[in-house]
């Protein structure tokens, strides 16, 4: 697809999203707003591409861990329902909160994002489109996406990851403001190649 055609598709998608999912959130698709939304997404992407998010949004069937994003210790696998292998589920080790004594991180509903929500290796534009694609986002509307990444308890954990794990590079409050502003301006995406 040529760059102009891709841009046109992105604009069309953004317009559709505004029309289809504007309940509950005021969105202003004003002239230039979409571009500004896309600019904001590049900042949002810095968070989504941090190890705290990517480690559990892998492209394969093995989670990663640590700031260095090494493969999860002892060959842990995704399992049939994204909660680990039968007999060794995520909650075998990960509890509702970080464990001080063992150092094992924890939050409610600890699990991998489904395989179709894999984000590793995506450009900012690809990541944005994946986030908005109902097939890849669990059938979420833009409002649902905004709610998930600004409110979800497992996402919240990223900013309270415990000792030895670096939080995302944008503060939680600022990130939430960026996400809402991006959505209000039409949830525009950067070019797929960027």
């Amino acid at each position: 697809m040529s760059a102009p055609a891709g841009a046109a598709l992105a604009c069309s998608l953004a317009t559709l999203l505004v029309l289809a999912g504007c309940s509950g959130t005021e969105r202003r698709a004003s002239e230039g707003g979409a571009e500004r939304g896309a600019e904001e997404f590049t900042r949002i992407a810095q968070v989504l591409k941090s190890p705290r998010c990517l480690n559990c949004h892998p492209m394969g069937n093995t989670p990663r861990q640590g700031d260095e994003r090494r493969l999860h210790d002892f060959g842990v696998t995704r399992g049939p329902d994204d909660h680990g292998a039968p007999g060794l589920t995520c909650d075998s080790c990960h509890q509702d909160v970080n464990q001080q004594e063992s150092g094992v991180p924890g939050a409610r509903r600890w699990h991998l994002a489904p395989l179709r929500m894999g984000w590793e290796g995506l450009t900012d534009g690809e990541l944005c489109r994946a986030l908005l694609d109902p097939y890849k986002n669990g059938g979420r509307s833009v409002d649902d996406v905004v709610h998930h990444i600004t409110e979800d308890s497992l996402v919240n954990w990223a900013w309270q990851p415990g000792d030895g794990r670096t939080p995302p590079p944008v503060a939680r409050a600022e990130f939430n403001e960026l996400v809402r502003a991006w959505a209000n301006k039409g949830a525009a995406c950067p070019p797929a190649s960027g």
Partner: protein
Amino acid sequence: MTEFVLNVNGTPRVAEATPDTPLLWVLREQLGLKGTKFGCGVAACGACTVNIDGVAVRSCSFPVSAAGNRAITTVEGLSPDRSHVLQRAWIAEQVPQCGYCQSGMLMSANALLRAIASPSDAEIEAAITNICRCGTYTRVRKAIHRAAQLMKESQ
């Protein structure tokens, strides 16, 4: 300190601990259930594995306050007379060498057989990630297959 009434091996047991105390230490030091072992302390080796509501849980990384009334099963709870299929299979296959990791192995295997009655080699490898410095892994696998067969025959 907080008082907890824990459901351990089918019996209510009272313990006092700070809420974030790992279940491992309550089981061993307050309830005298020494079958559950301390290995790495970081949920990596599996020596401390118990079952909670049938699921394998590494008790060094499980706060006692999270137990509530959930059913905790330790290796002592499999059977008092070596009659559990896993105990019979473990003896038949002569699995242990030094034995230190074996209670965790048994409880991981118990959770696996609860989830999959007749697991494949791949399913065993995915679920049994416990570490054994004696290298009993192949005998563990054989014993799990034998236990699955014993379960099937007893039905």
